[in-house]
């Protein structure tokens, strides 16, 4: 038996969410007294080394041109299923990200393996079952799920644990899988991330703004603040609906749910549907001209006043800090 961890390469590096999963899977393997095996597609030597450092004891390295990052979930699920069977994996770990959200349930359906999607803590064994905590009601509550099937799949909510890398070296086993042909033809791929910023679901620092910014022409100061701290930008739903900002920046109940270390909300009232997507953030700063804005009830730090004067001041203060610490 083994714990199998699905790992993804993105922009030449092992995805941060995947490193979190390897750490997580290695710890599960330790508690269950078994090995942590990572499966990765088309990885190079440096990437394999990093997977080892994150704690995998073994890596099944699959070389197959049909398997890239945005391959059809049917092909990825088929490859993972073959490896899981060969490795006698009883626990399979994915990240609860775009790929994991498509592949993990597909694999669950194929293998008749119970899935807990979006785990936020380590599983606890109870007889043959594993009990795992996950967020429910859009972060307003958590629930303990029990997985009762023989093979169990857990997808881990990104940013739930910090990544730690050690000196461990994994043994690498090359493996080939047969994945068949895709029923889906890709016509066009567009990248939405503007330049270098980290994609929103993985971002540790997020600067977000709402209707209080009055119009898209005022986003320059938001982007500048984000730039000085190295944050990714986000927005409230009406802002995306009015096309002030691209829709992939929309966070909340109907947008993306995020849980960065720092969430700065500027000119956002803090409606319950907005909070649903951000209240898992570790630290929340709210800047709002209305001292009665509901968001302050969910904030760690609050500044009451006009964003148009506060945001530039905040940017300057951060620049000062950065200059001093250099």
């Amino acid at each position, binding site marked *: 038996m083994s714990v199998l961890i699905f790992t993804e390469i993105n922009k030449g590096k092992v995805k941060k969410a995947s490193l979190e999963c390897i750490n997580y899977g290695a710890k599960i393997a330790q508690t269950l007294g078994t090995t942590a095996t990572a499966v990765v597609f088309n990885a190079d030597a440096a990437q394999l080394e990093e997977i080892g450092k994150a704690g995998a004891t073994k890596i099944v390295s699959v070389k197959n041109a049909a398997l890239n990052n945005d391959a059809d979930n049917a092909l990825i699920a088929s490859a993972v299923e073959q490896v899981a069977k060969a490795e006698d994996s009883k626990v399979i770990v994915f990240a609860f990200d775009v790929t994991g959200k498509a592949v993990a349930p*597909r694999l669950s359906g194929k293998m008749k393996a119970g899935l807990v999607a979006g785990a936020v803590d380590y599983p606890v064994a109870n007889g043959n079952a594993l009990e795992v905590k996950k967020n429910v009601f859009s972060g307003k509550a958590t629930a303990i799920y*029990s997985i009762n099937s023989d093979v169990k799949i857990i997808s881990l909510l990104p940013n739930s644990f910090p990544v730690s890398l050690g000196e461990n070296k994994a043994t690498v086993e090359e493996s080939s899988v047969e994945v068949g042909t895709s029923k889906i033809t890709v016509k066009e791929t567009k990248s939405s991330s503007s330049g270098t910023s980290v994609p929103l679901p993985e971002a540790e620092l997020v600067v977000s703004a709402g209707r209080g910014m009055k119009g898209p022409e005022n986003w320059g100061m938001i982007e500048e603040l984000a730039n000085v701290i190295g944050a990714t930008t986000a927005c409230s739903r009406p802002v995306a609906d009015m096309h002030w900002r691209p829709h992939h920046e929309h966070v909340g109940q109907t947008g993306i749910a995020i849980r960065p270390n720092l969430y700065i909300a500027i000119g956002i009232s803090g409606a319950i549907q907005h909070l649903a997507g951000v209240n898992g953030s570790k630290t929340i700063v709210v800047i709002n001209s209305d001292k009665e804005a509901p968001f302050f009830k969910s904030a760690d730090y609050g500044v009451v006043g006009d964003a148009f004067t506060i945001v530039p001041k905040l940017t300057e203060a951060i620049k000062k800090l950065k200059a001093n610490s250099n």
Partner: protein
Amino acid sequence: MKILVAISNVPDTTAKISFTNGGAEFNAAGVTFIINPYDEWYALVRALELKEAGKATQVSLIHVGLADSEATIRKGLALGADDAIRVNAEGPDAYFVAEQIAKYAKDNGYELVLVGKETINYNGSSVGGMIGGMTDWAYVSLATKMDFNGTTATIEHDIDGGTQVVECTTPMVVSCAKGMAEQRIPNMRGIMAARTKPITVVEPAGNDKLTSIKSFELSKGRTDCKFIDENNMDELVNLLHTEAKVI
């Protein structure tokens, strides 16, 4: 083309969440239930648009749940769905729900199954992919645009760090996200018509519940917001640096 839209019954987005029975059960007292927003605004409305455009012949709703969700199903019929199927069993195990929908779709000649991106109560984003795995149909997740030319769909969907346009032929499963369609409000004629539209109740196939919920707990709110003077951003930065240690 026959479209099957999977709808879930969820607490209204503003509902106060609480639990009874020592955290074992969701407290439904005083809570209004609605169609899961993704299922209604995006999946169902897009299905209706496809029918209006002559690209679909039938739009059916399917719901796995007990009789108390009939009001929610009627709302979907009022919006314009032709008929509805209720599989008479309790969720929320996603595998069990997916198994019921997969079986019904296959046995009854549906070529397109639409689900929402996720339910706002269990947040699993799981049922669609599971149906794909069970039927071996293509599964396109997080679709933001979808159109058909005969049996071939052109779909725009979100991928990691971007979007992708794909082509795919039925049968298939698609999970629907923002962008697919605009929310509609049912009109009086729709509400009247819904009263006589059929809701077929079927008993579940099998009892494969692979997961169960043991207990719930409310997330801890934040206790106290520290207010910082708007003219003292150095203090805020200092707190973020030394106290919160986030920058």
